[in-house]
């Protein structure tokens, strides 16, 4: 699905990603954990193509294509989805109109005609039910006046609508109460399939109780320093990150 090799990226001349490697196969869920400032959100931004970051070295192959060569919109059209940590508000643009535009663009890229209105509306209805999003939210302006939880749910709703092959969840659990967390995770679980992969970035093990990952990676200082299964997340929860930092520094 995606193969990231020796990825180096910096912002304002400061290197954040320092030789990051990761292989994600179709259908797998990878969790990335790590202390603040380890580069987790930078990884998400670089993969999505945010231009503030400069990629200085490395290679990323996504669905057999050179990801780093593609514009952000083409990455999205190829099936890469980022659930934002801080979803932005777009006043006056309804969620429905926003998604219709996005889906039409993606379909056009794939040489498909726009969805018929009734098929589109049916899709909206089905996916709304899937992520337990109220009908009224879909008709409101994109994220405008949404609570923190509603914004995150809206991200999952968009993900369900766009049906990406790779979804990156950037701290989607931050700021969620336990009910919202359950709903968001429930949405993700319903979207898990053998041809869809996830990279779940989180600070807390809590989310991984609901979204059970195939692999857990610990990121520190711009690299993955430890890889394990879901038990590693539990270990981190009880022991914190300090032991990993020490291990890493000793290794150097």
């Amino acid at each position, binding site marked *: 699905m995606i193969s990231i090799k020796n990825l180096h990226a910096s912002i304002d001349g400061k290197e954040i990603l320092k030789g990051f490697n990761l292989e994600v196969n179709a259908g797998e869920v990878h969790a990335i954990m790590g202390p603040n400032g380890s580069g987790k959100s930078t990884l998400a931004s670089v993969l999505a193509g945010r231009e503030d970051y400069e990629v200085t070295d490395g290679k990323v192959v996504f669905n057999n294509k050179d990801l780093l060569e593609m*514009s*952000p*919109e083409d990455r*999205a059209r190829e099936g890469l989805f980022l659930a934002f940590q801080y979803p932005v508000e*777009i*006043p*006056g643009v309804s969620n429905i*109109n926003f998604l219709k535009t996005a889906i039409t*663009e993606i379909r056009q890229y794939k040489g498909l005609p726009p969805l018929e209105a009734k098929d589109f509306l049916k899709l909206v209805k089905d996916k709304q039910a899937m992520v337990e999003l109220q009908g009224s939210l879909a008709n409101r302006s994109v994220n405008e006046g949404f609570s923190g939880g509603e914004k995150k749910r809206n991200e999952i709703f968009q993900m369900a609508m766009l049906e990406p092959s790779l979804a990156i969840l950037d701290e989607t659990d931050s700021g969620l109460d336990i009910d919202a967390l359950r709903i968001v995770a429930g949405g993700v679980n319903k979207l898990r399939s053998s041809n869809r992969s996830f990279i779940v970035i989180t600070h807390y093990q809590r989310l991984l109780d609901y979204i059970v990952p195939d692999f857990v990676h610990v990121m520190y200082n711009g690299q993955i320093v430890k890889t394990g299964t879901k038990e590693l997340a539990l270990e981190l929860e009880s022991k914190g990150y300090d032991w990993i930092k020490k291990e890493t520094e000793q290794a150097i």
Partner: protein
Amino acid sequence: MADILEEVTGSEYKYGFTSDIEMDTAPIGLNESIIRFISEKKNEPAWMLEYRLKAYSKWLTMKEPKHWPHVSYPEIDFQNIIYYAAPKLKKELASLDEVDPELLKTFEKLGISLEEQKRLTGVQSNIAVDAVIDSVSVKTTFKETLAEKGIIFCSFSEAVQEHPELVRKYMGTVVPYTDNFYAALNSAVFTDGSFCYIPKGVRCPMELSTYFRINASGTGQFERTLIIADEGAYVSYLEGCTAPMRDENQLHAAVVEIIAHKNAEVKYSTVQNWYPGDKDGKGGIYNFVTKRGICLEDNSKISWTQVETGSAVTWKYPSVILKGNNSVGEFYSVAVTNHHQQADTGTKMIHIGRNTRSTIVSKGISAGLSNNSYRGLVKIHKGAKNARNFSQCDSLLMGDKCGAHTFPYIEIKDQSAIVEHEATTSKIGEDQLFYCKQRGIDTEKAIALIVNGYCKEVFNQLPMEFAVEAQKLLAVSLEGSVG
């Protein structure tokens, strides 16, 4: 990433073509004999000539308003303008077949059909059109259909001939020739425009529209429009305008007057798309316009909706005098400036009657090196009990080389008034753009989406087919405003 908003490239003005039409023009310059020439060309009655001459002598004593509007442009040489230019027409056109085919082609190209069975822009609609090219109206459609209901919709010149009593009664009552420099100039040299009268109790069954086109080089267009809605009448009126791309600046100085009697309602929508000049600021129309309506009697309503995307310099304040009790005035505006364009636009709401209400929603969008100002006055006279105003002025900046300014004036002489003013300034966020792109939407489409969302409250006020046009126009105007 910051430079994504910086690169400013050219945008296409698709109405910039010129038409080769045989023209009849006045000698260049302005003096009494030019005014007599115009009046004679139009075969006007003596009272009209007298009105023009009075306006001219007043104008000679007036100064161009150059100090207060937030715009700058070189001195206009009023002696270097042709004040009358008309396509040579055969007398008394019996049918459309007699119109110069070149002229018909011009309007076809603009998407305006002068044939009644055809519909504007292909959308199922019912619109009567008055087409004005340079100084004269060339054709008014659906006149007979409208006449069955007693509605008069014709060119201003024709109204002077056919309905002099109405023209004399109302002309200059809302915008007197003494009003301002450009209103005085217009009153002296106006050439054509539309006249519309909706009789008592009639709801106009179709949209009425006037399409203004400046074609001839070196000319000014001085449009005069008068709309009267008698007791209980309703009309929705649309105005559109374009001009060829020329290196020179051309002057458009219009006067529009609206009168709403008891329980009457007039909705006036404009999509202003005069040639804005090229991306270096060369050429373009100077659009200095006085538009004003009066809610003369109780329970009347006047609503202005404007989408301003064109002109090199715009100076325009569609206003409402709320004289009748319970009368309502509305102003919805989207003003877009790009490249070197300058706009100083807004409204005046003058509350005189009791329980009068006004709403102002202004959305300014500045891009490139342009300057966009909102200038508004809300005036509550003494005795205007329980007057209410709500104003919302939003500015959207694209890039960091443009300017947005707000000059709201409020004068309240009655303590029972409630006046609210809200203003915001925002930038098209790179975060917003990135969010759209991450969902597969490219930059151009993302900007159109964001800007249309921002203007939604105003677009909602436009008639359907106009709203669609306006959205498209906005996308074209902002094309290339980000790299």
